[in-house]
């Protein structure tokens, strides 16, 4: 089997942001479930947090190609 070890490293590195994104949306769903009218207010905040957490995974992707 051939391949690049940094690919495995990147795969492992995505676990962190993946958990972070999961936690962010879990908190969002919890918030909306407790108080449905807050959904509209929380949505941009949740997506903002998701984007910031996801940036770390994207950094990993770019570093993989460097």
């Amino acid at each position, binding site marked *: *089997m051939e391949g690049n070890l940094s690919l495995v490293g990147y795969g492992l590195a995505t676990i962190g942001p993946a958990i972070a994104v999961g936690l962010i949306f879990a908190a969002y769903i919890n918030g909306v479930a407790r108080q449905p009218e807050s959904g509209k207010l929380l949505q*941009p905040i949740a*997506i*903002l947090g998701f*984007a*910031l957490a996801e940036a770390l995974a*994207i950094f990993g*992707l770019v570093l993989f190609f460097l």
Partner: protein
Amino acid sequence: MSFNVLASTLGTMAPAEGFPPTPEIFWQPLFSVAGVSITRAMVVAAISVVGIAWWLVATTQRAAVVPSKGQFFTEGVYGFVRNGIAKDMIGSKDFLRFVPLLFSLFIFILVNNLFGIVPFIQMPTMSRIGFPIALVLVVYVVYHGIGIKKHGLAGYFKFLVPGGLPGWIVPFIFVLEFITFFITRPLTLALRLFGNMFAGHMLLVVFIVGGWELFLADSFFLKLAALPAWVLAFAFTLFEGLVQFLQAYVFTLLAASYIGGALADEH
């Protein structure tokens, strides 16, 4: 090791040209004019600009109080950017003058992203790093420009540090905030859009080309395995559509939040 055994029992696979896919698949020059290559991404971007211009002119030319279907749709998209992004992020006092910029960014990125799953075009423009960099440059100049205009050059740098901190910590916070404002923010903004489009396109290529490779293998079971690969390719195409919309939204949202942050009175 075990993969080799598996492969030899199931039949041999001759790797074909362009397999496995590499980032080179994104470099697709169509023709060159005076030494400058016109790539597929450039053509797609040009098509999108023409398409957007036609769409906006056609649906707003005869704007009426009782809107037609087209006008209603355009107003819906505009209202989404105006109220859902700009007003929320910048604040109701001076969001209105940034709505044209944010609306243009949103629809330009959205249409270009969606070209990634439109049949026969299938090239997300933003998977070439130059396009996100150009868009981010515009946002970068705008949010620093209005920040400096509002606070003054010295005031803008003073504004980077939140007030009420003990004196010895101010230099550290200043360096951190300076890096955030001038390096991390534009870098992440460009890389996020680029990375998502790039990775999404690679994913689709892997599933479709990989399925084709499996189909060409001289074993019945490997041919059978091509079917789930193509089913997954179809599923990921739908998923890509969601990601592409989300990335256009996130880019505009972050651009608006940076503008709003530069305009804020206090930290």
